[in-house]
């Protein structure tokens, strides 16, 4: 960090307003025809490939990528608007979101030309679901402990081992897998890892479901047994993946999905306390509004810095640290603030269903995509403490 925290005042440019209206109109239409129910976040979290294809047709996947790969060369701030509107509506984006946010950008940077030409346009059309192949039974936050092994063979690599906690592996077309290609070096334990593009439909890959306490069914174990990956599916430098992973993190960590995961509870809270709340409810709501507004202004600022070609790694880690803790605490805050509302309020059932769901997904929010502890380590390093 250059010694000073930077949050430039970025306002979304005027072209974003028109885009936002377009996205809202599209979502309203999809809700009207029953594609998803915005009041049922648990269901909205499911995948819907036909819906993803309609989003792709609108040009809202791969928005910032070059046109020659099917992208639309729009700004990060425009992508920001689309992401937050879909999230707030509880729209099912699961089958294309990971590809759009992080797999596509990795391919853009590290895949061979013919692979990019083949795969990126299909991502943009909403046809492909990507998953992140990082965590293993013995390697969670400590990524560099990965043991899944890729062994050089004629014309490619054989992969053996297993990945775990892999969201969406049951529906995925591709994984970007982090595999060990050499033992760690004495002076650098991060050495020896390589990223591969893995076609999930090939022989030697078995996907076993893992059920979560929230009822969500997207978690999996992925077992590799002599799965063959061709040479042209190596992404970037062999043994040097650790250099590639860190610069992507600012994209993954600062988006609106890092504080809007339980946003629906804000709306039910407002409905529950009514148009003329008592002081306790009003104060509680007001604090949440101020905190949410602050997070969003920070997050937009990071998006603006990314657009300007900067790498605000510390600022992005701060947004995720504060944002995920906020969205994680929200269920209990709303529960407390609605403790004294009359039992006959109109949205009682919806509120209770949402509270139950949000409470059971809350623990994952500060774990996925970099735990609170890892983030604070990154921030401490930025402060000059490590």
């Amino acid at each position, binding site marked *: 960090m250059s010694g000073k925290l930077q949050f430039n005042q970025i306002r979304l440019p005027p072209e974003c307003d028109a885009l936002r209206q377009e996205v809202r109109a599209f979502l309203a239409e999809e809700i009207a025809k029953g594609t998803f129910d915005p009041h049922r976040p648990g269901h909205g979290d499911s995948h819907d490939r036909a819906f993803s294809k309609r989003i792709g047709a609108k040009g809202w996947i791969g928005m910032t990528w070059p046109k020659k790969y099917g992208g639309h060369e729009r700004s990060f701030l425009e992508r920001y608007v689309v992401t937050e509107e879909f999230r707030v509506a509880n729209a099912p984006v699961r089958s294309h979101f990971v590809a759009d946010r992080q797999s596509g950008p990795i391919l853009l940077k590290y895949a061979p030309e013919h692979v990019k030409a083949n795969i990126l346009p299909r991502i943009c059309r909403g046809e492909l679901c990507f998953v992140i192949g990082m965590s293993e039974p013995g390697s969670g936050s400590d990524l560099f402990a990965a043991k899944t092994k890729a062994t050089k063979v004629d014309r490619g690599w054989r992969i053996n081992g297993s990945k775990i906690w892999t969201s969406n592996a049951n529906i995925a077309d591709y994984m970007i897998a982090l595999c060990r290609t050499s033992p760690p070096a004495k002076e650098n334990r991060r050495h020896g890892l390589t990223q591969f593009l893995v076609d999930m439909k090939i022989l030697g890959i078995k996907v076993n479901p893992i059920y979560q306490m929230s009822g969500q069914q997207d978690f999996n174990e992925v077992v590799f047994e002599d799965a063959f990956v061709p040479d042209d599916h190596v992404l970037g430098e062999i043994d040097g993946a650790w250099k590639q992973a860190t610069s992507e993190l600012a994209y993954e960590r600062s988006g609106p999905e890092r504080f809007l995961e339980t946003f629906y509870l804000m709306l039910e809270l*407002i409905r529950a306390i009514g148009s003329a709340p008592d002081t306790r409810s009003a104060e509680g709501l007001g604090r949440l*509004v101020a905190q949410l507004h602050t997070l969003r202004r920070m997050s937009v600022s990071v998006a603006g810095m990314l657009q300007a070609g900067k790498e605000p790694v510390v600022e992005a880690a701060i947004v995720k640290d504060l944002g995920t803790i906020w969205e994680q605490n929200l269920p209990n805050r709303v529960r407390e603030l609605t403790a004294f509302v009359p039992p006959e309020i109109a949205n009682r059932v919806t509120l209770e269903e949402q509270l139950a769901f949000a409470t059971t997904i809350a623990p994952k929010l500060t774990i996925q995509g970099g735990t609170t502890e890892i983030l604070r380590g990154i921030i401490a390093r930025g402060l000059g403490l490590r």
Partner: protein
Amino acid sequence: MTNDSDHIVIESAARIFADLADPQTINRLDHAAWKAPFWQALADAGLALAWVPEQLGGAGAPLADGFAVLGVAGRFAVAVPLAETLLAGWLLTRAGVAAPNGRMTIAPSRPFDRIIFDADGTLSGCAIGIPFASEAQHIAVLAEGEEGAFVALVAARDCTIGQGQTLAGDPSNIVQFQRVKPLRYARAPFGLDHAALMLMGSVSRSVQTAGALESILSLSVSYANERVAFERPIGKFQAVQHNLARLAGETAAALAVSGSAANTITRSDSFDEAAFLEGASAKIRCAEAATEGSAIAHQVFGAIGFTNEHVLHRFTLRTLAWRDDFGSESYWAAELGKHVAKCGAEEFWPMVASR
């Protein structure tokens, strides 16, 4: 929100603060003789009346420059009524009342106080917690008359000013107006009401708080890298690192939200719904950051941090005291919550997304 003109103003302000009001130096003094030359330098540089147009006797600087100066003032925990004089100059000249030289403050500075502008042209009422009233020569008053609000310039000696100080030892006084005859007054322009004054004051305090938190963070990180315990700098311990990361988060939140609010007022120069959402949010979140951030910093410093001798309290106690000026976080949260509830759930996301 920095641009080129900001940079020049920031640099000149920072130079004056560093030369004449360095917190370390001041903290060792047992007298207040530093205040007069310091104030003179601020006035000479046009910083005190930055928000007063040139034709009314000021420097005519843009609002953004004044907010930038307040951020730097926060970083130095400046203990003179610079923010108050800026605000007073702003209030007076918005109504076309010329601003005098010298130290000023503003009344009211709490949301529940009202000063009455009587039909005979005098002011009556009582305002509590007026910052630096006992050090000010003039008070800019927003008063309420039968036919709307007035802005009046009052000589401090014409009021009854009580004793009192903030947590940080800065004056904070009860001011009584007993049929006080203003030196000059004018009708307040449309849109400049009690709520607008509270918002403008709140955004100023938020910007100061963010600046002070920047210094609190850098002091704390430096100390953690120097102080050795169990044979290593305490900053090498993960528990301490995580506390400092949280402090960085609170500082970042305060910087972002106060900068956003100042930017909003700078751009629109009005006190509409956007300014209310941004200004109230800034005061709420910066006050929360002050509470959290000060506690963390004191924990990092251990015993030395709460001694008079150490400079930390100059920053932490000011951020804690500023929470109560122009409406506390509880006050603004209730106001903001009432507004959001009244607008209803359907309007909420569009309101957030509009910023």
